[in-house]
C-alpha cells in the first residue's frame, strides 16, 4: 500500500479519535498519593530533593510541606499487574480490550511498538492523600508512514489526571509508532 491510496484501516481508526482508549481508562488510582511509594521512588532513583520526604524542609519551601515527585504522575494510576501470564500477553498488566485501536492495528500486522514522544504537564504538585483518576483519549492517528523499522502508524493519546475534586492536576501526551516489523527496509 502506498501512502496515497485509500486506507480502510485508517478510516476505521479515524472513528476512534476523540474517544476513550478503553484499555487505559478511566483508571482510578488503587492508592492515594502516599509517602511509602514516594520513598520507594526516591530511593530507586536516588533523588535527594528534600521536598519529597523531609517535612521540615518541605515546609520551608513554597510547597509548605512534602510533595510527590512530579514524574510519578503516571505511577499513581498504573493498573495493578496480574503477574501470571504477563509475558504471554506481551507485557500488558491485564486483559486488552478487543475493540482497542492498538489491538486493531496489531491484528492488521502492525505488531511492533516503539514509543517516540512523551509530554508531561504539571498543573500542581501532588500531596499525600490526593486520590487520582486518569482519563485517556485517542488524539490522533497518522497516515501510514514508511520508516526505517517498517511501515506503520503514529498513534497519539492524551491522559488527563484529575484529583478527588475533579480538578486537573496534570496531563500526559504519548506517541507511539505501531509498525509492521516484516516491512522493515521496504519502500512504498
Amino acid at each position, binding site marked *: 500500500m502506498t501512502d496515497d491510496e485509500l486506507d480502510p484501516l485508517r478510516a476505521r481508526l479515524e472513528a476512534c479519535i476523540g474517544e476513550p482508549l478503553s484499555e487505559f481508562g478511566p483508571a482510578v488510582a488503587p492508592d492515594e498519593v502516599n509517602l511509602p511509594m514516594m520513598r520507594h521512588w526516591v530511593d530507586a532513583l536516588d533523588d535527594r530533593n528534600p521536598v519529597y520526604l523531609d517535612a521540615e524542609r518541605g515546609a520551608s519551601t513554597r510547597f509548605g510541606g512534602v510533595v510527590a515527585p512530579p514524574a510519578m504522575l503516571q505511577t499513581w494510576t498504573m493498573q495493578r499487574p496480574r503477574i501470571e501470564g504477563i509475558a504471554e500477553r506481551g507485557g500488558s*498488566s491485564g486483559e486488552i480490550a478487543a475493540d482497542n485501536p492498538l489491538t486493531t492495528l496489531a491484528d492488521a500486522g502492525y505488531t511492533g511498538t516503539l514509543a517516540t514522544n512523551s509530554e508531561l504537564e504539571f498543573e500542581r504538585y501532588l500531596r499525600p492523600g490526593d486520590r487520582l483518576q486518569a482519563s485517556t483519549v485517542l488524539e490522533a492517528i497518522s497516515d501510514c508512514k514508511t520508516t526505517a523499522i517498517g511501515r506503520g502508524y503514529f498513534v497519539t493519546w492524551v491522559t488527563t489526571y484529575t484529583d478527588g475534586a475533579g480538578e486537573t492536576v496534570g496531563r500526559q501526551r504519548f506517541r507511539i509508532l505501531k509498525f509492521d516489523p516484516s516491512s522493515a527496509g521496504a519502500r512504498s
Partner: protein
Amino acid sequence: MTGGSGVSLRFRDIAAGDELTPLDLAVTATVIVAGAIASRDFMPVHHDRGFATAQGAPDIFMNILTTNGYVSRFVTDWAGPETMLRSISIRLGAPAVPDKILRFTGRVTDTRQEGDEGVVELAIRAANDLGDHATGTVVLSLPLDALA
C-alpha cells in the same frame, strides 16, 4: 553553579546559555529494575533479559517513567528544592541499557517573569554510546520572592 539539594538557584542568577551541571548515570540492571518497579511498570522488557532480547532489544531497557524521573532529578539537582516543573517533553531514541553511562546535559534556552514566578526553559539531552536516549524541553518555575 548548582542548587543541589540545599539552596535553590535565584531566578535573577539564571540566564539563557547557562549550562546545567551534567549528570552521569551508571545504568545497571539494578537501576533499570528499581525504576521500573518503583513506577509500577511490570512490562517484562524492563526486568527480563530473555524477554527483551526476544523482542529485538539488546538487553532490558529503562522505562519511560524512569527516564522522566531522572530528567526531573537532573533538573532539580541543579535548580534546587523551590523548583516546580511545569512540563517535561521528550523525544525518545536509543534505549538506556545496562553497563552504559547515560549522560544528562542541559542548557537554559529562555527565561521570563510571569506574575510572582520566574519561568525557565531548558533544552535537555540524555545520551549513551548508542546515541540520544531522550532529547527535549523542560519548563520550570522558581518563586521570585526567593530573591529576598
